[in-house]
């Protein structure tokens, strides 16, 4: 049930940040967005207020292929959050010809925007549209049993200069559950800052997809420039889809 709610929350918040695809070629990461970055945003439904910060989010992933070869990748994003709970994420794209995709999540104004600096365009999506999406997700997602999830409290540690509480979650996919000959163990270790209420480190290991380490570094606890949460005046703004079953407006 928790997982059910989590995916719903995740989905709706992701949707809030728009759904227009940028030009092709913004390749990066494990699931390469060959057709574009659709959206970014906080996974929590309730915005965190009164805890502004800016930071750099780095994700390193490693996948070992069946022949022993390894694929290692690294991604970086800039993250800003103001005291009102507005969030800006600048996701760097490795592809040389592409500029970052920027997402602004503004629960104060009730809108989310996805900005494409390369084309100076933005897609605006009303936040209230999320109910439909949430219902769509929650009603139609296949769920695997959560009874096999084990959670371990790792206590409090200082991670990247911030006090954080750690949780290790382990899940085992029984043999034969997804066609696997042997049981598969998935492990995730998340450290969430007590003050910022966001993860400052996440280590994940899922043999199906590889291992990843996410870290939040260069954290500055000052109020970001308010202009970061506004769509530049010279951007052409279009309205995003009001329903998730519409992949996106034509450009």
């Amino acid at each position, binding site marked *: 049930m*928790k997982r059910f709610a*989590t*995916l719903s929350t*995740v*989905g709706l*918040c*992701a949707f809030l*940040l728009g*759904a227009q*695809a940028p030009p*092709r070629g913004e390749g990066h*990461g*494990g*699931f*390469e*967005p*060959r*057709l574009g*970055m*659709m*959206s*970014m*945003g*906080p*996974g*929590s439904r309730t915005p965190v207020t009164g805890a502004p910060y800016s930071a750099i*989010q780095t994700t390193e*992933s490693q996948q070992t292929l069946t022949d022993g070869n390894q694929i290692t990748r690294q991604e970086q994003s800039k993250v800003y959050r103001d005291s009102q709970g507005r969030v800006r*994420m600048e996701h760097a794209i490795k592809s040389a010809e592409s500029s970052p995709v920027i997402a602004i999540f503004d629960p104060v104004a009730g809108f989310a925007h996805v900005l494409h600096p390369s084309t100076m365009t933005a897609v605006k999506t009303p936040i209230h549209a999320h109910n*439909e999406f949430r*219902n*769509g*997700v929650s009603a*139609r*997602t*296949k769920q695997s049993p959560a009874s096999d*999830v084990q959670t371990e409290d790792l206590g409090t540690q200082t991670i990247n200069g911030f006090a954080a509480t750690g949780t290790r*979650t382990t899940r085992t996919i029984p043999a034969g*559950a*997804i*066609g696997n000959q042997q049981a*598969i163990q*998935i492990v995730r270790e*998340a450290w*969430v800052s007590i003050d*910022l209420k966001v*993860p400052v480190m*996440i*280590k*994940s290991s*899922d043999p*199906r*997809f590889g291992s990843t380490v*996410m870290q939040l570094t260069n954290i500055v606890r000052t109020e970001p420039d308010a202009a970061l949460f506004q769509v530049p005046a010279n951007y052409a703004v279009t309205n995003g889809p009001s329903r*998730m*079953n519409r*992949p*996106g407006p*034509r*450009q």
Partner: protein
Amino acid sequence: MTCRESTVELVECARTGEDPDAELQAHLMSCSRCKERWEDERRLTTQFRIMRDAVTGQPSMAGREELMREFERAHTGGFHVFWRWALNAAAILLVVLALVYDWRHHGSAGSVAKPQKNSVGLQAEDSGDEGGFVSVPYALPLAPGEFVRIVRTELDREALAGMGIDIETADGAEVPADVLLGEDDLPRGVRVLPDNGFSNLE
């Protein structure tokens, strides 16, 4: 027929409730006194019957039959008409509800994620619905405050199967899909898109 003979038969007919025979009727037509007597006898017999019924509380067979006929006339026809209309209305309502349900669950979703070309044949349980994100089986829950993002990409059958999503595709064919990722870059949900998802991006 004499008036004396007529009187005896009048009394008997009035008592039994039978109609006078032809000979008696002919006499009544010709004799005003006997006719008046016949009317009195019949009226008196009727009064006696009413009094008897009032005392016993049971109507006579004739009265009961008359009452039943009245009841049939008054109610039976209306009763059947009412239920006939009610059943017809219920049937129409059921048909309308079925059409609305079908339209909402199939008609409106038909243009969502079903490929319009025959390169793929979706079998994933949820791929044809609005919203349409299918959770990746056995994915671990997100941490509090964790960010997510959706990337649009192309996945082949093996990649989808690795996430526990079964879709029939042509050999080597890739399917456009939105993948929901956590900050650890691991997938949490997948939404398979129709082929014409490409056209929105060009």
